[in-house]
């Protein structure tokens, strides 16, 4: 990374319009998602008619400030990957709006969209599946450059492209002369670095990281996390960081959205979320994290059952059939009839629970009453 300046890396690139604004002043909104919905059709019957929908993302609103790292957590199938891909226009949105820098992404098409794609990139989960085994690294990374080549950047020329590929290999901690090698010659961690170089070579402002470290070993995981945060500072990146590992998210992100069955159930600054979660699902999710300290045998709030199918979500609050808080409160009717809106509880913390104000107190009592609770083991 050393010896490489922002100027050489971003040559031929128009300076990001907002980099000046990023210094000081009020935080500036980079991405605004409003009531976004992504449904997939289910076809059935003899005539293959549409018989239903999978409500993968069902009314998500969020804003991400420039330079912020926004974490998205939830169990598999909750729609977090679909949300990330819909924002990037890799999936077709059913309804809603996505605005980047005030421009509506969903209304764009053709050349306008193609220019926009340069500003938003994706880092994939599986470094073994996301690199074409038949392409040398120079093509794996250079393909995007070629697609985005224009008269200004000169990426249509092989030498220009190869030089840029080498620059970015260096930026992610690999050797410049690796350009002629093929993906199978690299380890998992190195491949993930190539995937990161590919995403960054187009000078994006916004990067969706879809589980970038979950396929990696513990010792490699920390190397990649360090790299991602170094690059964040160096290139003024804004991340949407999708993960199911809550320890990684709490370390890496400033603000976190918790998803359940296609909806955001809580959005809060990281410290607030971990210190006083305001949604019963967040409480359960946090309680499930194992900690590497044998002295802490946690009093767990183990959730019953499993995530229901997103094709047929429960009525009212989607979490109500598994909710421990509803049970404690004597099964109030409102939970099964009315879908709670994501509402602001002050201090930037938002929760979609009818009884959000009672979550903290009840969680403490619930944990204490659990039969499986094991007291802290003294060493």
């Amino acid at each position: 990374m050393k010896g490489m300046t922002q100027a050489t890396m971003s040559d031929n690139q128009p300076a990001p319009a907002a980099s000046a604004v990023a210094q000081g002043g009020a935080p500036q909104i980079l991405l605004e998602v409003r009531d976004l919905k992504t449904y997939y059709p289910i076809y059935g019957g003899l005539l293959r008619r549409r018989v239903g929908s999978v409500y993968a993302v069902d009314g998500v609103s969020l804003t991400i400030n420039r330079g912020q790292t926004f974490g998205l957590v939830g169990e598999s199938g909750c729609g977090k990957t679909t949300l990330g891909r819909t924002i990037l226009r890799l999936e077709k949105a059913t309804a809603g709006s996505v605005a980047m820098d005030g421009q509506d992404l969903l209304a764009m098409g053709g050349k306008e969209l193609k220019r926009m794609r340069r500003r938003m990139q994706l880092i994939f989960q599986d470094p073994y599946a996301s690199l074409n085994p038949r392409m040398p690294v120079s093509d794996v990374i250079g393909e995007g450059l070629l697609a985005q080549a224009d008269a200004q950047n000169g990426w249509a020329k092989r030498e220009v492209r190869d030089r840029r590929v080498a620059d970015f290999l260096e930026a992610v901690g690999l050797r410049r002369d690796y350009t002629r090698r093929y993906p199978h010659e690299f380890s998992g961690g190195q491949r993930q670095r190539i995937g990161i170089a590919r995403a960054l070579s187009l000078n994006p402002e916004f990067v969706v990281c879809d589980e970038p470290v979950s396929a990696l070993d513990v010792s490699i995981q920390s190397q990649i996390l360090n790299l991602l945060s170094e690059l964040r500072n160096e290139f003024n990146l804004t991340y949407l960081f999708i993960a199911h590992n809550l320890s990684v998210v709490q370390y890496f992100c400033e603000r976190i959205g918790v998803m359940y069955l296609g909806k955001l159930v809580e959005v809060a600054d990281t410290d607030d979320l971990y210190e006083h979660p305001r949604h019963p699902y967040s409480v359960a999710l946090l309680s499930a994290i194992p900690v590497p300290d044998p002295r802490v045998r946690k009093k767990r709030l183990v959730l019953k059952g499993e995530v229901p199918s997103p094709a047929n979500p429960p009525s009212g609050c989607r979490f109500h059939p598994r909710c421990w808080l509803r049970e404690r409160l004597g099964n109030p009717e409102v939970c099964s009839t009315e879908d709670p809106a994501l509402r602001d509880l002050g201090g930037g913390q938002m929760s979609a629970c009818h009884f959000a104000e009672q979550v903290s107190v009840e969680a403490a009592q619930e944990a204490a009453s659990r039969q499986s609770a094991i007291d802290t083991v003294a060493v």
Partner: protein
Amino acid sequence: MKQKMVVDDPVAGDSRLGPPSDPETLLEIRDLHTYFHVMDGTVKAVDGVTFSLKRGETLGLVGESGCGKSVTALTIMQLLDMPPGEIASGQIWFDGRDLLQLDSDDMRQVRGADIAMIFQEPMTSLNPVFTIGDQISEAIVLHQHVGKKEAWVRSIDALRSVGIPAPERRVKQYPHEMSGGIRQRVMIAMALSCNPKLLLADEPTTALDVTIQAQILELIKELQARTGAALLLITHDLAVVAETVQNVAVMYAGRIVETGTVEEVLLGPTHPYTQGLLNSIPALHKRGQELDVIKGVVPNPFRMPPGCKFEPRCPYSCDLCRTSEPELVAVPGRKSHSRCFLQTHEGAARRGDFERAAGSTVRGVMG
């Protein structure tokens, strides 16, 4: 002392040495070597592993991918493809017998009955064309010598014991009709259906979501306590180890580099690799700071370093580490064993640096 290591014993690994003297020892592995002969040469996946497990004891085997932890389990079960695999040397004493001396018929009696295994992938380890009742009763008929009807009833009981709702209905279903969490429960039910003395769980929760992982870990702990089976839990996740087992063995490059109780190893590691793993775990209080990393990558199996296998990545290495490999030795004043010169008189001068860093590990883990 829970962990009985025989490495200090000069005759360890000698085939003339009989079964373990302590009748409480259920499993004793001595100097086990499992190799794979592939086109590019020989991969020594397990290269001199020694450990033992008492009846009812729980031991976690931790390490990164490729360190040989799964191959160790597959060697115990003798489920390796041979060739290219080869159990080159060593002994696996289980309940008074050396499993490596058994013929395949005798081994089949042990496998599934006395030693059962839970695999990582609940999606691929069940047969998609049979109902789960068929799959569970197959083992029961084979090992418990009962009729099919009786086996079917026992299958339902097994499913009930792992907390599957409506087991009478589930027993007739196929694997694709179930979620990942339920399939893993089915795997556990199948493993426990013949009351094994030893349960090998190979990354049983890695493929599962965190809330389901919590359910399955609680279930394994509860069943282990109820049945009294010994548990060998294989995982890469130190947090899972901390919550589930009493003792732990850390593997690196086909060797055990550290053993001890969970408290000792996780709160005061004596090997630089364990320390590095613990320090690299991300946590809230480290936000904004760079994470400590173990530099480099695991060594190429065809080009292993001549001395200590961790030396190229070790922040405390010295000339001695480059030329000779340390033994797994008892750490003075503790139950731990460590394969590092820092714990012997050769490395005493450098121990101060290591212990200062170890102090920060403990603080880090406590958060």
